């Protein structure tokens, strides 16, 4: 509340951007571009932490009980046994933290935090967010929460170990690490809501003169709809977390029936009468839309990049916008498809199956429109384009494997198997992370004023693309074979033993995939300082951010903007060049053409003279 009041003051102050102290500029900055960079750096650090966790998990699955090479002996004794192999306790913590970190501290901050913050004001021609102070608060809640989440490491019982879904009673009877996890998630939720409020207000209120809603680039549309989902969905998770916190910390029993037999915890105070499924409903009411929070901005970024590098208008712009809106709306009413086998009323199973099947339609529309965008284009395969192209292809796989889950009888078999793990990684890694890579390279010149290294970018892309498929595609097969998710040692089961070579194959790919990400970091860091200087509009793109200097100063634009066109007027027959910035007025177009014709005439005359 107070924050809202403060921010209005800041807006007035910051119009005169005088030199600021180091702390105001780099740490407690209210500049949306700096906040975007802060989100990016923090999230990339978490990306490596979460990725390292994943590699430990993979090692254990491929070589159960064998010591971790090189560093096994160095890890603390609460994590590994004497030989240096992962223990079952640490394994469950690893998988919980891998999921939580990757979702809440990597993908959402990268897509929503970084791209939302960086792109929105620049793409709508505003000088900053509507509430810059709120924006800063929203960022600072995030690293605090991230550290808190991992703070369980210092506690007895270790980090949270109930899976990222934290189903009670398991999470309600767990140790201190779980309590910290709940608090951390609550903070992250609050941070998301503040961000969401800010984005919605900014997009509705601060568009440059002449810019209608249907002149917004897809990135902005996608983040706008995402922000709406965030504001609608996240608070429900927050309330569920509050109740889980009460159960966990104060021994209430929202989610716990009477007389649970738990040797590790004093249950005498817990009255009972709760309903474990209630958590699942509340949780998925947020967390299913959260999947769309994690993919919609990616879709927006990819739409922009595909259009730019195909030099073509985005195919079916309005259909794309309505598809996003449809996904958002339907996304909130399909949460029950995570619960077909949970013991909920089978009638609800039918209801949610139908709504889930319907939600596949807008995703199909988007895919076809992307194809349409490339049709008869003039494609240039730069690093952002390669990543965007990969996004579409991987998203198709993720979408198709989703149909298996929508169908209730099939879902009952593949639920909680590696099929789900494969599916979610095709959507969140193949989808979201490829979109992140695409966006990072695409906006790198604008963000830093320098070009990234195209050669390293392409190497990074190809290695990632190949090993990504090598890692996650076989997981579908494991799932079809029935291998349970979150299992510590698959060799316990006879029917899973034949899959061990496949597990090894996955792990080898995952290792390469993990280490290939250092290429990305190297490219970003090196180019940031040593890269070639970037021009104002290196991609010859239409949207407004390319009208600002690279990098944009505090306050963003150095001239007044007026928007005349939609964002995707590439290769228009009206213009000489193959792009038409949104700010170019009809008079300017006319003048350019006259100029061009004159030049042609002169050239013709010269030719005839010669």
């Amino acid at each position: 509340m107070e924050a809202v009041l403060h921010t209005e003051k800041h807006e007035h102050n910051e119009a005169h951007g005088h030199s600021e102290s180091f702390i105001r500029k780099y740490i407690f900055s209210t500049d949306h571009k700096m906040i975007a960079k802060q989100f990016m750096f923090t999230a990339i650090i978490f990306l490596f932490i979460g990725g390292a966790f994943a590699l430990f998990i993979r090692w254990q699955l491929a070589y159960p009980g064998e010591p971790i090479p090189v560093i096994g002996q160095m890890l603390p004794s609460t994590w590994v046994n004497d030989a240096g192999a992962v223990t079952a306790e640490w394994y469950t913590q690893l998988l919980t933290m891998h999921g939580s970190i990757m979702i809440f501290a990597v993908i959402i901050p990268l897509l929503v935090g970084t791209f939302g913050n960086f792109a929105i004001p620049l793409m709508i021609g505003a000088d900053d967010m509507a509430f810059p102070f709120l924006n800063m608060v929203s960022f600072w809640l995030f690293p605090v929460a991230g550290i808190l989440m991992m703070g369980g490491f210092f506690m007895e019982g270790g980090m949270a170990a109930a899976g990222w879904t934290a189903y009670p009673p398991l999470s309600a009877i767990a140790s201190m690490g779980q309590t910290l996890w709940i608090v951390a998630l609550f903070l992250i939720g609050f941070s998301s809501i503040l961000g969401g409020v800010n984005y919605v207000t900014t997009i509705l209120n601060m568009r440059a003169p002449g810019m209608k809603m249907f002149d917004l680039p897809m990135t902005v549309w996608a983040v706008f709809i995402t922000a709406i989902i965030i504001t609608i969905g996240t608070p429900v998770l927050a309330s569920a977390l509050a109740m889980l916190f009460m159960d966990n910390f104060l021994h209430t029993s929202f989610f716990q029936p009477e007389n649970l037999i738990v040797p590790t915890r004093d249950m005498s105070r817990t009255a009972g009468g709760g309903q474990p499924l209630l958590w699942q409903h509340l949780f998925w009411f947020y967390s299913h839309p959260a999947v769309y929070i994690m993919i919609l901005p990616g879709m927006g970024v990819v739409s922009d990049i595909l259009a730019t590098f195909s030099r073509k208008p985005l195919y079916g712009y309005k259909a794309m916008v309505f598809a996003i809106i449809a996904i958002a709306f339907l996304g909130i009413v399909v949460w029950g498809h995570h619960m077909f086998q949970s013991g909920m009323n089978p009638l609800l199973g039918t209801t949610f199956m139908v709504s889930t099947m319907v939600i596949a339609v807008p995703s199909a529309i988007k895919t076809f429109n992307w194809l349409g965008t490339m049709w008869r284009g003039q494609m240039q395969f730069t690093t952002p384009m390669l990543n965007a192209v990969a996004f579409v292809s991987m998203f198709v796989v993720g979408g198709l494997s989703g149909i298996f889950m929508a169908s209730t009888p099939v879902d009952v078999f593949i639920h909680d198997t590696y099929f789900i793990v494969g599916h979610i990684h095709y959507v969140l890694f193949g989808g979201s992370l490829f979109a992140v890579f695409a966006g990072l390279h695409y906006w790198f010149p604008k963000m830093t004023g320098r070009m990234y290294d195209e050669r390293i970018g392409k190497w990074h892309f190809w290695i990632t693309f190949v090993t990504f498929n090598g890692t996650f595609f076989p997981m579908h097969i494991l799932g079809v074979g029935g291998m349970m998710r979150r299992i510590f040692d698959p060799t316990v089961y006879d029917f899973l033993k034949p899959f061990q070579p496949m597990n090894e194959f996955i792990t080898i790919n995952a290792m390469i995939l993990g280490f290939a990400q250092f290429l990305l970091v190297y490219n970003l860091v090196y180019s940031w300082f040593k890269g070639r200087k970037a021009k104002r509009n290196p991609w010859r793109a239409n949207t407004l951010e390319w009208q600002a200097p690279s990098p944009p100063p505090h306050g963003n634009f150095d001239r007044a903007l007026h928007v005349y066109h939609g964002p995707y007027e590439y290769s228009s027959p009206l213009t000489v060049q193959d792009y038409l910035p949104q700010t170019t007025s009809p008079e300017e177009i006319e003048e350019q053409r006259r100029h061009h014709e004159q030049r042609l005439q002169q050239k013709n005359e010269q030719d005839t003279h010669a």
Partner: protein
Amino acid sequence: MSTLATTHTQTNTGIYHGKLGMWVFLASEIMFFTGFFGAFIVLRNLNIEVFTASAHQLDKVVATINTAVLITSSLTMALSHLALERGNEAKFRLFLTITIICAFGFLGIKTYEYASKFSHDIYPWTNNFFATYFTMTGFHALHVIGGLIPMIWMLGKSMVKGYPQSMHHRVETLGLYWHFVDLVWIFLFPTLYLIF
């Protein structure tokens, strides 16, 4: 510096940022309480006897007084904004003071209610009714406190430096929030105290 500074005073929707942002935030707050109400309904249907018996242990008279106090504070909040908009700062201060007193009154009565529950050995973990009761009213009370802080800040500023008429938008934004707090109580009151 920025040539777009004008967009601040002229927004695309014609609604100033504070109000629009507050409405978005309130929409999200509605969903926050949706979670609790959903849980309340589910748990009530599961343990109807426990809920009925426990609800009768609550003090309806005190709750009714508290409702009246909160509604009064809502009125004075609206009036204080109106006064500032008309440029009458003295009246603005008066009504804001009444609002603050009412808010403290509400919290005081709430504290009394909690204390009398604790003295009867009733705690959140006693049963699910009291778990929801304490959680919902507790979060509501936190929202009251969240509203009190900027109110006191405004009042203090008005007394020390004066609060210009041009700031009436902030009072309106705060008012929106405050009415929402009132609104949540309007639903909590029958749900917890009356319908059983």
